[in-house]
């Protein structure tokens, strides 16, 4: 497999502030080059899922057609090839988030499964009635509901730390929520509905000072920010492949080895055992203890290719490009009468969530779609956030490394058109 042949070719001098050649990047993504309702696609729904670069598609094709057999089983050639590639993908993930050990990288279906795994294998066995789990107002449903289920099962209590009107976590109030019964804090790194980047380093420090553990939901963060789980000292970090330009159905749970070792398996089956008799089964060592059944190893290998792609361009370069795009988008959307951006945190990712006076998000979504502009409308699986800001729904444009200022101009033009259609 030929990876990124020359990563430096993505950096060109004098091609805008970010120094990234966006047109060259766009050429790597086949899905971007299509017409929707007769208009060139403007894909601004990256927080829901990102498009895939050709290297990821080629990798999937290659492994299914040339090097495919089940992993960790056969002594035959193909099985060994697949096993090697799978474990190499684990190493790529480890390096990507700077974990200390590949044994701390568990492959799961996605962020949701990672959080459920922690709720059921880490929290459920040890949490008692009255123990507390602390989350924030801005969490995605996937970082709310698993804890509610756990509370029903154990009698633990879910507490919620508030945010201010900009959508920033109120750190003092957060700290006040920490108490002697706090066992776990589960917090998003980057809010999918508001774009807020949380000060996870401080959150982890505060929480550890109270003797509790921290899970960070990194689903939105990993495609845009460099993550170093050792520097953060976080206990659990969860993310998905598909938002990181990788395949669907594959994700990662990072957990400190000492925690994984003490946790019972999440599911039972093949792959996760050492020895099975009808009397007693001993489990495989971590991380395989948590990977029952045939894993989605081709997905993991594809995710490894996506990580190579992203790191080849450089997360700093990507972040810079997305930051300047977000600033431009904030400016031109701000010029549209009646448009109000929801989520105006000082430290913010490339998410532009907004409401438009006189046009419901769902109507706007339909009109933008007809203009070829793909955005998300609705509550973004974060109904409590909508409640906090007193809006039923927002329209969300979420930007990725391949988006351009011109696309944001098309978004703005389509919003102006929507206002005309609504006689505003």
């Amino acid at each position, binding site marked *: 497999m030929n990876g990124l042949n020359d990563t430096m070719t993505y950096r060109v001098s004098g091609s805008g502030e970010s120094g990234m050649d966006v047109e060259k990047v766009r050429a790597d993504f086949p899905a971007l080059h299509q017409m929707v309702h007769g208009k060139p696609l403007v894909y601004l729904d990256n927080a829901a899922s990102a498009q895939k670069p050709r290297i990821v598609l080629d990798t999937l094709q290659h492994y299914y057609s040339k090097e495919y057999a089940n992993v960790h089983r056969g002594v035959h050639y193909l099985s060994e090839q697949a096993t090697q590639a799978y474990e190499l993908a684990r190493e790529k993930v480890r390096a990507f988030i700077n974990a200390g050990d590949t044994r701390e990288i568990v492959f799961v279906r996605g962020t949701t499964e990672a959080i459920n795994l922690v709720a059921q294998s880490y929290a459920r066995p040890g949490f008692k009635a009255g123990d507390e789990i602390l989350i924030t107002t801005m969490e995605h449903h996937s970082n709310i509901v698993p804890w509610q289920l756990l509370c029903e099962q154990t009698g633990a209590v879910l507490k919620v730390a508030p945010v201010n009107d900009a959508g920033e976590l109120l750190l003092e109030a957060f700290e006040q929520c920490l108490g002697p019964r706090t066992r776990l804090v589960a917090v998003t790194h980057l809010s999918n509905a508001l774009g807020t980047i949380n000060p996870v380093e401080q959150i982890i420090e505060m929480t550890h000072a109270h003797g509790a553990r921290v899970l960070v939901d990194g689903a939105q963060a990993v495609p845009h920010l460099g993550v170093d789980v050792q520097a953060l000292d976080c206990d659990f970090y969860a993310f998905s492949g598909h938002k990181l330009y990788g395949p669907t159905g594959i994700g990662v749970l990072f957990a400190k080895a000492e925690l994984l070792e003490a946790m019972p398996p999440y599911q039972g089956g093949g792959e996760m055992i050492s020895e099975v008799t009808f009397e007693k089964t001993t489990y495989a060592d971590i991380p395989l203890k948590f990977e029952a059944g045939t894993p989605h190893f081709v997905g993991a290998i594809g995710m490894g290719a996506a990580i190579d792609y992203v790191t080849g361009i450089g997360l700093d370069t990507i972040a810079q490009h997305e930051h300047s795009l977000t600033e431009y988008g904030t400016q031109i959307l701000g010029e549209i009468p009646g448009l109000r951006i929801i989520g105006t945190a000082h430290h913010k990712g490339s998410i532009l969530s907004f409401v438009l006076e006189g046009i419901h998000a*769902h*109507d706007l979504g339909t009109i933008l779609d*007809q203009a070829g502009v793909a955005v998300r409308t609705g509550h973004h699986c974060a109904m409590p956030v909508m409640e906090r800001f007193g809006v039923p729904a927002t329209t969300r444009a979420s930007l990725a490394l391949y988006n351009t200022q011109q696309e944001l101009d098309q978004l703005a033009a389509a919003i102006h058109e929507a206002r005309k259609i609504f006689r505003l």
Partner: protein
Amino acid sequence: MTDLRELYQDVIIDHSRNPRNFGKLDAADRITQGNNPLCGDKLTLYLKVDENDLITGVSFEGIGCAISISSASLMTEMLKGKTLRQAEELFQAFHGLIMGEKTPDQDAGLGKLKVLEGVKLFPSRVKCATLAWHMLHAALEKTTQPVSTE
């Protein structure tokens, strides 16, 4: 954009901005809740039905997109003075119109509701247009469960 002009006709914009029969109906004897989780629409429908199965009072309240609010508003306008049976027939006819299954004789009773026909070109919006109608259907059946489009 022609399809969009067809979808967002003047009548629809007007009813979405100034919904008729909007608010709580204190005398209501049938109250139905409905929601469309996909886009956050939430409506409540109030009906007052007399001993002759005649709808003597109808109103609705809630939040929603232009399609769901205008559809609910237009529906309430049509319902007053109808019998339960006529209301059910109207539900069937409207459903056929939006799903593109209408027959000529059903057309007759629909009147102004025909402005919503453009919705059939936008499958993702059918649930918006039919939310209030499914709530009506539930009210006619005296279902107490809230209506959800999911």
